[in-house]
């Protein structure tokens, strides 16, 4: 059984007349998926439903063989999620936040893991500063640290590259690379180069519908970028690609 399965998942927002789905989709173990689409296409809504933060109006989400429901708290702890707007508490430090997250996940040895996490995301120099005094990029790294410190079986990153410098983008690339073939990773990004480089599957969202790019896995780097661009500028593409679900 695929570790992530969407079965006719739907969400409707009557006020904005937006309808997401029905979505049928599954991801095999160790896959790395790039998800992209226009602003407002429904990517973040889909992520919120997968992570259990939002309840679908119809359909089911299965994760690791279990149904994602309102009381699936143990299942939620197996996911790492960095939302697009990853605001953090203002008057705590990165050190505090990592300690708190490690305690809530029940991870040991706490001090060693905290030191490693802070070091990996290069947060040591500002580990004790209030987060309100940290720059956007620093806060993004702390958000990434919180989302990944428990080595989740499913990692969902919504626009993780924004605000990061090249040095820390490399750290994130390495992390996604390390997970490949081992755990599931879903990355939403508008940066075609990173999507093409890091993911072995890709899907585009169009007005609440999911289109998988079927030739992505066998395509080379430049072709993948072309495939992505074709989703945004279909008039320029020589051949439309994808299977709508």
């Amino acid at each position: 059984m695929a570790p992530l399965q969407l079965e006719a998942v739907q969400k409707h927002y009557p006020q904005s007349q937006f309808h997401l789905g029905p979505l049928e989709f599954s991801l095999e173990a160790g896959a790395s998926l790039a998800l992209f689409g226009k602003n407002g296409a429904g990517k973040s809504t889909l992520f919120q439903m997968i992570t259990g933060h939002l309840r679908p109006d119809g359909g089911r989400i299965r994760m690791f063989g279990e149904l994602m429901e309102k009381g699936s708290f143990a299942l939620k702890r197996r996911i790492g999620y960095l939302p697009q707007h990853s605001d953090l508490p203002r008057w705590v430090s990165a050190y505090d936040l990592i300690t708190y997250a490690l305690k809530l996940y029940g991870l040991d040895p706490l001090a060693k893991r905290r030191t490693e996490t802070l070091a990996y995301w290069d947060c040591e120099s500002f580990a004790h500063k209030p987060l309100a005094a940290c720059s956007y990029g620093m806060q993004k790294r702390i958000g990434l640290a919180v989302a990944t410190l428990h080595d989740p079986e499913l990692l969902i990153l919504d626009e993780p590259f924004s605000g990061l410098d090249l040095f820390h983008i490399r750290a994130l690339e390495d992390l996604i690379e390390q997970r490949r073939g081992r755990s599931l990773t879903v990355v939403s990004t508008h940066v075609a180069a990173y999507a093409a480089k890091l993911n072995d599957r890709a899907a585009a969202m169009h007005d609440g519908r999911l289109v998988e790019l079927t030739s992505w896995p066998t395509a080379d780097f430049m072709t993948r970028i072309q495939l992505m661009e074709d989703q945004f500028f279909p008039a320029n593409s020589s051949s439309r690609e994808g299977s709508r679900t």
Partner: protein
Amino acid sequence: MLKLTTPLRLVWLHNKQSLIRLRYDFGREVVVIISAITLLGLFFYIFHDFLHQKVRDIPEPIRERLIAGFLVSLLLLLGPWIGGRIRRLWSEDAGWSTYTERLGENPRMLAAFRILQSCLVIGASYALYWLWLLPAFTSKPLAQGWLWQVLSLGLGAARAWWLQPSAPDRRLQLEPILDDREISRVRTLILWRWHQLTRRNRLSRLCLGLALVLQLAAIGLGAWAWPFFLIILLSMLSSLLLASAAAFQLEEDMRAIWFERQMGCSHDEYVRVYQYLCWGLGAAMGLLALTGTLVFRKPEVLPLAEAWKILPIAALFPSILPSIMFQLAPDRPLLQILVTALIGLFLGTAIYAHGLALFLVPLFTHYAKHYQSDNFYRT
């Protein structure tokens, strides 16, 4: 010669924008304020005779001093509030004036707009106070009114120019709030909030400090044999401030609630944390109030059968908050405080009128908790 047309148009746009914000950003607040006024009317209708009797029991000089104290406090608070608004007008990055400046408007025009708007804020606020609020409470002129007015303006100027809280100091280093000892999940959640409430969240700390000062003042008034009704009122206010401290922390939590949801924090777990904190704070304040009352009471004036009521009343408001915090909007502290104040006023007055009304509190909290179940994931 500087033409006033542009600055006046900016003043108009600036204030129109505030009205639009009131309609779209604070729609829920407006609805709650209107509902609160309606319910307050109902409250005074229900408890009219009881309250009238209690107010009549307060000696005339004390009543006058209380009204004067209340009006002076309002005037002194008005100054810093105006100062804050003016400071924002001159410094905020996303305001009309900065936007217009970036479009290349003459800086003198913008200075004229800011001066006009500042005058409008000062004039309108003090006019409301002297012409509407003051006559609503007393027919007598405020003693040394000019002195309080000057002091209010001085406090406003201080807030506008010197005491504005700045962005956090980048050199600031925080002490860790959690140690590495192994503790339970709920205890971690509680300690995390407790330390923020008492060490990090400035508004919450201010509310906690004020609540303590008010409660000590209430005890002090009891020592001077002031009417018990007034001590109860002060205790209610102090209790509301405790609830406000928790409401401000709740707002802070909601800014970044995604990571706690991600860590599988359940609605029940989260509400339980606030219950522990609020009930603990309430119990501590209630015991302080009761101890103070018992130490200074004169048994012939205040029998024990009446004095005990201060315990549940001083503990009441923070005890209500966890049951209603997910009913409306947890990220809007003003709403939380308004609703808590209203419910606390009903229940507190009922307990003061008759001790058996205490049984209404568990009944209320049980049903209120039921109605907000699972809202942690819906907000």
